[in-house]
Each structure stands twice: as structure tokens, then as C-alpha cells.
């Protein structure tokens, strides 16, 4: 079975979810492109979009239509060539509309798992719940006569355990997209102890066709991405908790968020990132990873407390940010949650006080957006960190400790052989998390 055949009947489980919808989009685009090749004339391509509610599937199709249109508008050059044989399609607008239809025609939304029984490739992007995943994969594999290949989007569960428990005989690989899959270029690819070489070869070809950056990760819970993020988040939480001995917790959360964003030149502060991913998701990923870790406890009572109080973060269905640790007003941080009162405290009430406590930013400091876009990024970073190194304000002290902890986490991932080398760790943080620099660096030496 060649690449094209493998992709002629595909299923995405959890297709209406945040990750599933992106995987569906990218795969449907790839299939539509294959269908347009002259040698595939007459072949039928099908991708089943399976999820649990009609409402979600309706929203999914709306999303796909808009995204397929955007994709077509971006690659009209290529589409004009692909549709050169169609004399009836002359304007860009006609070609773009035809392509959108050709993408939509590949997709079959469904509420029934049975739809997947005929697929040769199955993407799994359901809830990050090991038991649920095993149950569904196992059931599917018993009913599907084609010995399908499984691409799981798990961000934390060891692939080997899924492989064994669902009895898949190596027909599985971790193919971890970053959120949102349609935008983020990074993919972590994780083999189980038994992943078949042909499955891996196909995964590499598929990633290449999607123009993704592949970082191989070894099969340790959390892999590289969450292996760094969860520990980095826990560090932020612990620093805030320590600070809260002197100031109210919500002020401490605000200060740590600010330090991790502005001083470390990241696109988001750590608590904004936790909100973006979802407090519940973070809690869950830690709980999935924790049993696999020997000498550390990856668990935060603060996260448990937030969830008990019903504060979860994550996104609304239109993609806007739900309130979590922070309260958002049109994307801007407007308040911070105070677990003692169960209320959001407006930032304006303590901004000056916190800023005074942290001290002023290094004079050479530039916002993340400026630094990542700068031609002389490396020089800028050297200068900023050189200045930071010589400062001993609270802000600078927290920032330095944060950066060193981030580096330590990165080095540990290499030492534990989760990552093959330091470069892979840096690539994940640069590409998957949009950091301005990799955590393993010499800026503070």
C-alpha cells in the first residue's frame, strides 16, 4: 500500500476538537491535493470526521470551509496549475471556490465509530485519557479488517503503553501536533518500542508534505514539549506561592506572569499560557505524566484548587480565551483570580504596586515581537541578558532563576534521553512555543 492508497480512506477521531479539527483540515487538504494529481484521476478519497455531537460537527464544517478558503487563497499559484485542465475555471475566484468544494467533498462528518471500520489510517485526537484511548483503539482495531495505522496526538501518554494495551502490534506512532495544528509548524514524532518502520516512513513523508518541522522525541511521558512546559509551569506556580508569603496570591501570580513574559521575552506569561492550554488540561497532563516519573512529583495543589472552584481557562468555540488564572478583555489581561475571595481583582488596582516591587525592566529590553522579528536577534538577546545579569531587582532575580530553571529542565530532558540532543529541545521551544530563544543557552553564564 503506497502513500496515496494509505491516505484514501482516513478517519479522525475527535475531529471537532481543538486539535482534531486542525488535523482534519490539514489531512483533507493533503487528500484533496492528491485527488487533483492526474495519476489519481477517478480515485475516491474519504476522510471520516468523527465526534460526539452534531452541534460540534456543524461548527467543524464551518471551520473547515473558512480555513480551506484561506488555504486556497494562499496557494492559488499552485491551484492554477492543478486545475489547468479545467477550461471552465478561469478566474482565481472560480479556481479557489472549486478547491474549497473539492476539500469539503472529501470529508464525511459522523457520530458513529463504525465509519472508521473501513479506514487504513486513523488519527486519534480524543480526550487525553489513557483508558478511554485504549478502549477505543482496541475496539476499533478488532472491528477494522484492514489492520489500520494509528497516529495518536497524545501529548503525554507513552506510545508503547497504548500500543501494548490496545494490542496494535506496532501499528501506532505518536504524531503530536502543536496547537493550532493549521498554524504551528512543529510536530513531535514518537515511536513506541515496536512501531513498524513503514509506519515511521509514512509519518515522515506525511509531515514533509504538510511542510512541518519534525522533532523526534523518545517515548517518555510528556515527551519534549510537555516535558518542558509542565515543569516550567510548576516552577512558575511554586515561585508565585513562595512570593505569596509577602503579597496576596493574585499579586504574586501577576508578577510571575509578568516576569515570565516580559523579562524572559516570551509571547505569553506562564499563567496566560496555562489558561491558553486549559488549567484542567494541564492538571490532567501532569497526572498522566506523574506515575511515569521516578524522582519528582509533578503535581500542583493550586491547579486542583482552581478546578474545584470551576476556573478552567481554555477557549470558547470561536477561539477566544476563557478566563482562567487571568481575566481577559479583548485578549488583554484585565484581572487576576483571587482564590481566597473567588473574584477577579482588576489589574489597575495593583499594577503600580507590583511594578514598583519588581523594579524597572532592563533598559535594553525589547518586547517579544520586536526581538523575534529583529535581524540582529542574537545581538539583542546578548545585550539584554548581559544587562539582566548585572541587576538585582526582584524582577531580575526572579527572571534569572526562571531562565536557569528552564535551562535545567531542558538539559534534564537530554540527560534522560527524552530528547536526542539540546538542539531538539531548543527547536521545540522555538517552533512549538514561539520562544525567542532556546532554553539551553549561555546567556547567563
Amino acid at each position, binding site marked *: 500500500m503506497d502513500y496515496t492508497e494509505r491516505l484514501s480512506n482516513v478517519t479522525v477521531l475527535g475531529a471537532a476538537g481543538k486539535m482534531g479539527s486542525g488535523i482534519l483540515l490539514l489531512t483533507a487538504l493533503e487528500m484533496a491535493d492528491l485527488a487533483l494529481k492526474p495519476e489519481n484521476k477517478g480515485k475516491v478519497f474519504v476522510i471520516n470526521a468523527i465526534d460526539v455531537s452534531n452541534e460540534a460537527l456543524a461548527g467543524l464544517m464551518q471551520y473547515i470551509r473558512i480555513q480551506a478558503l484561506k488555504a486556497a*487563497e*494562499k496557494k*492559488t*499559484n499552485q491551484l*492554477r496549475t492543478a486545475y489547468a485542465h479545467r*477550461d471552465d475555471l*478561469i478566474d*482565481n475566484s472560480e479556481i479557489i471556490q472549486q478547491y474549497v468544494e473539492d476539500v469539503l467533498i472529501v470529508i464525511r462528518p459522523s457520530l458513529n465509530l463504525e465509519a472508521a471500520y473501513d479506514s487504513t489510517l486513523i488519527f486519534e485526537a480524543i480526550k487525553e485519557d489513557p483508558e478511554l484511548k485504549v478502549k477505543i483503539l482496541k475496539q476499533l482495531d478488532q472491528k477494522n479488517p484492514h489492520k489500520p495505522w494509528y497516529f495518536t496526538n497524545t501529548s503525554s501518554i507513552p506510545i508503547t503503553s497504548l500500543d501494548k494495551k490496545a494490542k496494535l502490534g506496532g501499528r501506532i506512532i505518536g504524531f503530536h501536533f502543536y496547537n493550532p495544528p493549521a498554524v504551528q509548524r512543529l510536530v513531535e514524532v514518537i515511536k513506541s518500542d515496536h512501531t513498524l518502520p513503514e509506519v515511521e516512513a509514512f509519518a515522515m513523508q506525511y509531515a514533509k508534505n504538510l511542510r512541518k518541522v519534525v522533532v523526534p522525541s523518545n517515548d517518555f511521558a510528556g515527551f519534549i514539549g510537555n516535558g518542558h512546559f509542565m515543569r516550567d509551569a510548576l516552577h512558575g506556580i511554586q515561585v508565585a506561592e513562595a512570593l505569596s508569603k509577602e503579597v496576596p496570591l493574585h499579586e504574586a501570580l501577576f508578577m510571575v506572569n509578568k516576569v515570565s513574559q516580559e523579562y524572559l521575552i516570551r509571547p505569553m506569561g506562564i499563567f496566560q499560557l496555562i489558561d491558553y492550554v486549559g488549567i484542567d488540561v494541564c492538571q490532567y497532563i501532569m497526572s498522566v505524566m506523574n506515575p511515569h516519573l521516578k524522582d519528582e512529583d509533578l503535581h500542583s495543589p493550586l491547579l486542583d484548587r482552581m478546578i474545584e472552584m470551576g476556573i478552567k481557562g481554555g477557549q470558547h468555540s470561536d477561539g477566544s480565551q476563557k478566563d482562567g488564572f487571568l481575566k481577559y478583555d479583548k485578549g488583554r489581561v484585565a484581572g487576576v483570580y483571587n482564590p481566597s475571595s473567588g473574584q477577579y481583582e482588576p489589574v489597575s488596582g495593583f499594577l503600580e504596586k507590583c511594578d514598583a516591587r519588581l523594579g524597572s525592566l532592563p533598559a535594553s529590553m525589547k518586547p517579544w515581537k520586536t526581538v523575534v522579528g529583529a535581524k540582529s536577534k542574537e545581538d539583542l538577546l546578548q545585550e539584554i541578558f548581559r544587562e539582566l545579569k548585572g541587576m538585582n531587582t526582584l524582577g531580575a532575580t526572579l527572571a534569572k532563576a526562571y531562565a536557569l530553571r528552564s535551562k535545567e529542565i531542558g538539559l534534564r530532558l537530554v540527560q534522560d534521553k527524552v530528547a536526542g540532543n539540546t538542539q531538539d529541545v531548543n527547536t521545540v521551544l522555538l517552533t512549538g512555543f514561539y520562544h525567542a530563544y532556546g532554553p539551553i543557552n549561555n546567556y547567563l553564564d
Partner: protein
Amino acid sequence: MKLRKKVYLVAGYNTISMGTGRKEFHPKKPRPDLDDYIREAGQGVLKKIGGAGNVDEAVFGNFIAARFNRQANLAAYLPFIDQGLRYKPAVRVEGACATGALALVTGIRSVLAETADVVLVLGVEVQNSVKAIYGADILAAAGWAKERKNGHAYFFPGKFSDRAKAYQEKFDAGKTREAMARWFVNAIENARLCPTAQEYQNNSDDLKSCGMMNPNPRGFVDSLNVYDCSKVSDGASAVAVVSEEGLRRVGIPKSEAVEVVGIGQAEEDITRRPDDPTVLATTREAVRKALESAGITKEKIGTVECHDCFTIAGILSVEAIGFALHGGGCDFVLQGHTARSGKVPFNTTGGLVGWGHPTGATGVHQAVTILEQLTGKAGNAQIAISAERPYGLSINMGGDDKTLVSVVYRKAE
């Protein structure tokens, strides 16, 4: 042919050229539309010429509002500008990107024919109503429809990319890129001096690198980068074309007028491919006619507004006028002769690359720019006009060197 009667231009008005580059532009936010631009430019002229009562008739230049804005029948906008224009005659003309100059020439012909003494000429285009990829479909109508199917997604950038490629293959490729970049730098530096220019607020500190950027064939075209291209623009320009009698009627002194002393028009077969893509042959012919009509040689020209829809078109125009031999246009540009401090400053408010290219308005905008330069009203963009080179020249091109209008001007005496 020599003009048989004195014809003057007065009271020019340009709106802002709106689109990417302007700080007030946001693709998703409301902004002025076709009605607003027509009214602003029309009223701008009326105010300077003593009101609607002084106007005999009007010419509207618009390429293709029927598709960009679902609006045709533009002549009927005349009374919308001012109720004092109700029931006066108007006509709308079209010749793709040469529409503006065709409108101007139509007004000039009316004065020459003595059917009017004061003609309001107004060019307008509003193109940001659609995304660029769809705008390319609409603008492709300036080419031969039967070529569209096999044409580039960005049809006209594709056409001029082919010309740039042919030029680079025939002459020095590296030098051509340098000259195109220099053309871009000149355009932006000039635009920064003109508050209505689309690139007026451009504050890039490294224009040269932008201009030198490698083309991206996958996303755009083979031999041009985005900085080689004129802008997608919304805007209008208007001017009054008047006879000697008309000049007295509107009460504007001659010192604030330019005289139109020569016109050259030329059409090439829209179905025909260029004989030599490295030459703008129709442009060359139109300029030759214009200079002959004015009875002058190119050495008398002090400033040029040329049709730099793409930087390569600017370089080819230099050769078409005869300022440089075939293949010598790049050196002429690189030696600084077309810069504002050079021998013949080109496109002194930025041209199509820097000021903007609201297609139907461009030919009128060129005339207004020369009117301002020759009468000393160009503000910060003012250049020195010497007694040895007192003439201005404009070149407005429709399609790929198909519909050409060239006009020669000098300060009224």
C-alpha cells in the same frame, strides 16, 4: 499634431491614496468608498474654480468600478458632487490603467473642439473592496481575456515579471535588480514628501534591502518582489481643463496654470504579444508623438511622471523616452539621473510605486503632480525647474503597453 488652441490645466486636487501603508487603513474596518472619493476630489476642484456654475461638462475616468464596487454609470455621479451640476453633460471613459489620461485627453479634446471652456476631469478607483488575489482577476481585464486562463494568478505582476526576466536574461541581471531596488528607494523617498501618498508614512530605515529582496516564485511571481509593485489603492484625482476663456471665467491667474502643449496617443493590438518584451514599443511611440506635437526634444523635459506600475516598467520607460539606449536604463537610474536631485526627476511624489495606483485616477494624478511642480505648488516635494528644461512629461499606460497616453506640459505664460 500641434494643438490648434491654448488649453490649460488648473485647480488640481488629489485625495489620499488609501491602502496598505497608510496608518488609517485597516482591511476589516470601514473606510471611505467610491462616493466619498468622487465627492472629495470633485468638490476640491469646484472650490478652486468658483463653484459648479463655472463648469460646462465633465469627464469621469474609471477602470472597473462595475466589478470592484458593483457600480457603473459613473457619469451620473456629476450632480452628486454638487447639485449645481445637475443636468450638465458628462461622459465616463475607460482604458484600463490609462483611463485617467484618457479622461484628461477627452476633456482636452472638448476644449479644442470648442464645445466647452471648462471641463471637470475626475479619475477614481476603489480597489481595496476585495482581497488582492481576487483584485488580480478584476485587473486582468486590462489584458486579453483569452490569455487569462494560462496567465499567472497575479496576472499583471506575471506579465511584468516576464518582462523583467527577459531583460535580466538579455542584459546584466544583477545590475537590473539593483536598478529596480533603486527605483523603489527613489519612489519611497519621494512619497515621504507628499502627505497624500500611500507610502507617506513609510519609515523603514533600510529601503535598499527591501528592494533587493529575492522574488518568491511559489507565493508570488518569478522575477519581481512585492516592493517592485505599485500599490492596491483607493483614491481620486481631479483637475479642470480650461480654454483661455475658461481661465478668465474661473478667475485663476496664469501663474497657477500649466498649458498642455503636446499630446501623443497610441494603441497596440490587445491580442498581440510584445515583439520584444524588453522594450515598451507603444510607450516609445506615444512619447515620440507627444514630443513631436509639442515641438520639443526630450532634452527640454525637466520632470517626468511615468507609469511605474512595476519598477521594471519605470526602467523601460526611461529607455522608451530615449534618455538611455536599449539596455542602458539601469545605468541611467543607478547614476541618480531619475532621483529628485538628478538631471530629470521622475515621479516626484512617488509615482505608482510610492504615491499609489488607484488605476482610473492615476493619469489625472500624474497631470496634477506636474501642474503642482511647474507652478511651484508641490510643497515639500517641490523640485527646481530650470529655464533650460521647462517642460513636464506624463506617460500613462493601459494594459501591458497597449493603450498609451503621453502629455507634454509647461507653465502657462
